[in-house]
């Protein structure tokens, strides 16, 4: 067991820090639409041109092939430098790109990989369907082979950045008689194809980065099927092993910074007694200390996850523990923020703005990508070996 950084790693950190300091965009990131797309792709392009695009991508695909510890260092410095989130480049870089690398054919790779790393193509994800909720395998969108095309009809939901995406990684049922995980196919869908309608979803936090996508006899050339017809589930799952221990790192580093900001906030606002600063109140102090400790635990869990990834090929069910812990901790942090803000917690402007936005936006962290209930099932069954039973 070890927790040290080598001289080379320290030098790498210094290099990352220096580059980020000089290159992080100073203008504010637009939150929606084409302006956002332009911002996100430009930032990807700048990273790529300076040799920082695709830190987790293999060198042969134009990435940096960084070690897990180097990736950790990158993310730590990235958050510290207040660099913008990957935004609409996220799906392409972290999910669709790696899937095409692993399971696509030479043609698919040649067409898509370079455009992603250069920030030229934006991707979105089409997995979830209305009513499916946590049951990801219940795909109903149909893909019917007709000549050289797959003709897709159906609906997807919770597609981030669908309005600005060029392509979509799309999961459809190509065998109409199949059930659950069988008979699915993973296809590359051109978002400009006729028959596609994108309807933005406004969330409880008031933003519209999610959308519903409707498919009305959308023709997709069979050459865009990745991994073969009927292999969709296996293709979708193969990407999971790409991220291994690193997926939660940005979240963890970001949340650590948020807790420190919360401690600072408590020093500024008036506390519950209306006289002293919140930070002087024993109850507030106790909560802040617990949150600080818990975010440290989240960091340790992330390191453990990196440690596992360094030894094993496929990630284990432990990943569900970090996701569960993160989601609930994020909410506890922002519950505390609402209490510390007190009378200001009903504002969405000024000092309260960022906190109340994240409080509302944070409801997604125990729902999206697997609810807390589903994650507890996974931990109970796959980590502890408890029986599945009848509920």
């Amino acid at each position, binding site marked *: 067991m070890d927790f040290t950084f080598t001289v080379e790693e320290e030098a790498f950190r210094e290099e990352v820090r220096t580059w980020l300091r000089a290159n992080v965009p100073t203008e504010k990131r637009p939150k929606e639409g084409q302006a956002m797309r332009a911002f996100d792709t430009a930032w990807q392009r700048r990273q790529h041109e300076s040799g920082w695009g695709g830190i987790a991508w293999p060198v042969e695909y134009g990435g940096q092939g960084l070690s897990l510890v180097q990736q950790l260092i990158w993310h730590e410095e990235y958050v510290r430098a207040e660099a913008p989130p990957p935004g609409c480049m996220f799906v392409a870089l972290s999910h669709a790109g790696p899937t095409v690398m692993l399971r696509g054919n030479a043609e698919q790779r040649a067409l898509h990989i370079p455009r992603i790393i250069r920030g030229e193509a934006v991707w979105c994800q089409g997995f979830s369907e209305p009513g499916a909720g*946590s049951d990801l395998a219940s795909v109903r969108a149909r893909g019917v082979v007709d000549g050289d095309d797959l003709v897709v009809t159906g609906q997807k939901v919770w597609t981030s950045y669908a309005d600005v995406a060029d392509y979509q990684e799309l999961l459809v049922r190509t065998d109409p008689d199949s059930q659950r995980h069988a008979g699915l196919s993973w296809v590359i869908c051109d978002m400009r194809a006729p028959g596609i309608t994108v309807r933005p979803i*406004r969330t*409880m936090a008031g933003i519209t980065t999610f959308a519903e996508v409707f498919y009305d006899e959308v023709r997709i050339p069979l050459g865009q099927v990745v991994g073969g017809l009927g292999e969709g589930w296996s293709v979708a799952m193969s990407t999971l092993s790409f991220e291994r221990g690193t997926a939660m790192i940005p979240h963890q580093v970001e949340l650590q910074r948020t807790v420190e900001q919360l401690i600072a906030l408590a020093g500024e606002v008036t506390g519950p007694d209306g006289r002293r600063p919140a930070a002087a109140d024993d109850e507030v102090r106790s909560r802040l200390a617990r949150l600080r400790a818990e975010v440290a635990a989240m960091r340790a869990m992330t390191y453990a996850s990196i440690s596992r990834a360094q030894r094993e090929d496929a990630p284990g069910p432990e990943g569900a523990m970090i996701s569960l812990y993160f989601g609930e901790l994020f909410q506890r942090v922002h519950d505390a923020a609402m209490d510390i803000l*007190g*009378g200001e*917690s009903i504002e969405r*402007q000024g000092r309260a703005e960022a906190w109340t936005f994240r409080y509302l936006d944070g409801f997604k962290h125990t729902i999206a990508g697997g*609810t807390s209930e589903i994650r507890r099932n996974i931990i109970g069954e796959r980590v502890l070996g408890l029986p599945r039973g009848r509920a």
Partner: protein
Amino acid sequence: MIDLLPDDDQKALIDNFESVLAAEAPLARLRDGQGDLALLARLAELGWFGLGLPESAGGVGLGLIEEALLFREAGRFLVGPRLFAAVLGAHAAVGAGDPALAAALAGGERGACLLSGDGRHAFDRQPGDSLVRVDEEGIRLLDEAALVRAEPIDGLDPAIALERVELDERGVRRLADRTLALRTKVLVSASLVGLAEAARDRATLYAKERQQFGQPIGAFQAIKHRCADMAVGCESAWTLTALAALCLGSGRHDAAFQAAAARIVAGDAALAAVRGNVQIHGGMGFTDECEAHLLVKRCHFLLQLAGGTRLHQEALLGEPEPVHGR
């Protein structure tokens, strides 16, 4: 007589509140940003503002418990905060010996808007309003002239027009006694209960209808038990709020104790229920389209309306243990 269940008259009253609000106050109305002005005008017409006001001041002359029943239903349907302003303002006017003003406020001829307990915010203010501010010490009824500055800002609850205000309280017209501060706690508690019950009912209904993994999600203990906790939260919060209303209504020695306790329990129950309702609705609950978030936002508003929970906790600890019996 110990009876925490409504009698026939009270049942009729509840039915009346509910049927009017179900017809005239669907939550969809909250999206137009009109601050419930039309709805409240209608409720004033129906005489609801004067329910607990003495007949001598143009009121119906019922008790605080009936007023609490009204605010419970109002909470359930997210009726805007001008209801608080009108009712509390009218009571303050009566207490200050101005039945004409009370009648005007209760009848809706004169407008009133609520200020937060700390005097920093105004809610759904209209030109010409009297301003009503309640804190632990009592209630202040201010003229519009007391408003030195009012800056509209974005609020957490999109259905309430929020302003940051600065007051010059040399214009304070009246300062009533502490029972109106306690009445406010009881009415806020009742609204929180209504909100909690709305969340419980919506979550339960959804859990019965929504199928996943081949059965209604309400059959899964994780969901079922969360709904059960909401039910217990509602039961504890409502029974205590009703008890507090009865104690304050009859001038019992422990009214301040019960009112603070009710506000604490109702606040906790409501927050847990509205948040649980989002979670049970899953992805749908996270959308703007689903009404679950409106309950969350209103809950945070009510929690700050008459001071945060910690304030009421201190008030409760300051009271002696209630003596059994009278």
